[in-house]
């Protein structure tokens, strides 16, 4: 049977597999809801509108970093990975190694509970959990590290189940090559396995030390930087794969460059991960100058796989829309199903990536990394990526597949369609305030940056904007998560059957007709480079006051 779309394929999956996906998604959305409430509280504290005791303020920041950046992202990625592997990988969608996937989910849940309990009963360690901070409360630190190790083991279980599912599908199809999405899912699962190793590399020595079974790790920050590098690539790779899979569903056909070319693009992610890791070492004092220079050059390649994948997606979208009769320079954009919440989420995700990408180019340059890395510039720009790009994509992807799990469309469709724009607007306020604050030296990870009235006046203004933007952004994300949770609990109207697709026209024959999509991407890229150059000039003119290290 030919692939007829993610939603119909998943709808045919066995009930127990749907139950697993539903459970992982519910855990993801609960972690997100918890995480953004904590994030808003921190933002309001910085603005002076909330005043938790200092220790609790850092607990909120730790809960935010762990719940949002770790558990939300990995529960959601785990679920979507399994969904793609099962729906694209097999004729009759079903999970292989199902008990391992359940065990993985349970371990992740235990990990979530452990990190949060440790944070609220012991010393708040922040999400990078330097052992130095934990000297006085090793028992709770052990619980925290065990939580991260549980996450790693659990993720590995889920990833192995996804890979086994794709392998089973290949066997069933007589060894025929995987589809591009299936290959992408396997590559993504492979990177998840490597990230699990990186978690163990970073946190096992700390756990042993906390258990009294090893020395205080001397180089925790190096292990953390390597892990953090993976954790930047991994969700981005997942995001792009979700875009690819959703646009494939929207248009009824895959890439017009053929499946093999898309596989090469997905493999590029893996090829670029290790070499680009050098730029995280910029702040290490003993780094040889040649390595520093090499790191700077390599850092420019960070965006290559994402840009390549994005080009494949938009050119395919335009070519297919033109072949289906869409006219006008941007008529192809109307081929996207604008009535569905996922399309709006994807649009804001792409725009956020352009903005986040611009700022990250500024930050990864060797000369600026040291100047800006301890300022609010860093959290400000990366929320474009974590909230705007990755979280909105995952939320859109979840909105897309919920009907296949429950037979019902999530409720409040109009609200779900509007929320990405509201979240995007709030994000602009939060992030631009934070970038401006960062350039004026506003430190990150400080709950009260007033310094008894001695702080620059500008800091107060940007902190207020941060509070307003942050609270609005959190309210939007929370509403989205709650609506999807209600959808998983089977609230909402019965889902309409997926629209029948016309047979996709021959891919190679229609490729040449796409021009405005690649031209727009080229203009966008030029704009990003111009903005980067402008930012450099601006930065030279500004007194940047803070310096330091770490992410």
């Amino acid at each position, binding site marked *: 049977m030919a692939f007829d779309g993610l939603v119909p394929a998943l709808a045919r999956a066995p009930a127990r597999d749907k139950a697993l996906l539903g459970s992982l998604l519910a855990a993801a959305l609960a972690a997100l809801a918890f995480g953004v409430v904590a994030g808003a509280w921190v933002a309001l504290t910085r603005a002076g509108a909330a005043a938790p005791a200092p220790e609790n303020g850092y607990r909120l920041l730790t809960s935010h970093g762990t719940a949002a950046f770790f558990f939300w992202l990995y529960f959601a990625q785990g679920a979507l990975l399994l969904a793609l592997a099962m729906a694209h990988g097999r004729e009759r969608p079903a999970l292989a190694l199902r008990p391992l996937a359940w065990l993985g989910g349970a371990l992740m849940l235990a990990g979530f509970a452990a990190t949060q309990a440790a944070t609220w009963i012991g010393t708040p360690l922040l999400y990078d959990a330097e052992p130095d901070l934990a000297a006085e409360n090793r028992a709770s630190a052990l619980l925290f590290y065990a939580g991260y190790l549980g996450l790693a083991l659990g993720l590995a279980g889920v990833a192995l189940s996804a890979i086994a599912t794709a392998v089973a599908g290949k066997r069933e199809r007589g060894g025929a*090559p995987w589809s591009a999405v299936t290959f992408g899912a396997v590559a993504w699962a492979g990177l998840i396995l490597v990230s699990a190793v*990186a978690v163990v*590399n970073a946190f096992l020595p700390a756990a042993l030390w906390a258990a009294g079974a090893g020395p205080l790790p001397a180089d925790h920050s190096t292990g953390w930087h390597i892990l953090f590098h993976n954790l930047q690539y991994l969700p981005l790779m997942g995001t792009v794969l979700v875009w690819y899979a959703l646009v494939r569903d929207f248009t009824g056909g895959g890439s017009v460059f053929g499946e093999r070319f898309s596989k090469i693009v997905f493999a590029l992610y893996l090829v670029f991960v290790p070499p680009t890791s050098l730029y995280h070492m910029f702040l290490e004092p003993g780094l040889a100058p040649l390595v520093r220079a090499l790191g700077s050059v390599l850092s420019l390649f960070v965006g290559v796989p994402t840009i390549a994948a994005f080009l494949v997606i938009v050119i395919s979208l335009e070519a297919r829309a033109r072949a289906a009769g869409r006219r006008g320079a941007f008529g192809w954009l109307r081929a996207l199903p604008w009535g569905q919440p996922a399309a709006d989420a994807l649009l804001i995700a792409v725009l956020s990536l352009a903005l986040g990408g611009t700022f990250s180019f500024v930050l990864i340059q060797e000369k600026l990394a040291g100047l800006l890395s301890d300022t609010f510039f860093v959290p400000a720009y990366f929320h474009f990526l974590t909230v705007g790009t990755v979280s909105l994509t995952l939320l859109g992807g979840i909105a897309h597949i919920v009907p296949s799990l429950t037979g019902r469309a999530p409720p409040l469709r109009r609200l779900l369609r509007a929320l990405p724009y509201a979240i995007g607007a709030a994000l602009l306020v939060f992030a631009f305030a934070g970038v401006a604050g960062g350039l004026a030296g506003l430190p990150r990870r400080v709950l009260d940056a007033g310094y008894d009235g001695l702080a620059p006046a500008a800091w107060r203004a940007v902190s207020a904007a941060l509070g307003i933007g942050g609270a609005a952004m959190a309210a939007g994300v929370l509403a989205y998560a709650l609506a999807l949770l209600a959808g998983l609990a089977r609230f909402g109207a019965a889902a309409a059957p997926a629209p029948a697709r016309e047979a996709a026209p021959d891919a190679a024959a229609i490729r040449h007709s796409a021009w405005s999509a690649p031209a727009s991407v080229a203009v966008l890229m030029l704009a990003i480079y111009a903005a980067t150059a402008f930012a450099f000039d601006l930065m030279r003119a500004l007194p940047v006051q803070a310096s330091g290290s770490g992410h």
Partner: protein
Amino acid sequence: MDEDVAALALVFAIWALLAAAYALVPMLSMPDAARVWGAGAAVFLALAVWVARSRRRR
């Protein structure tokens, strides 16, 4: 060779080379990076072997 196996094997080769460079080139000398990318190389090698064997066993 099957294109999926070839792509996974290519990733293995690149990661193994980089892990070796991080471990052996004195100027780079990053044992943590060598460990993680080396383990990653092993993951992709295992994946390539898993996929290749499943094709032969059909």
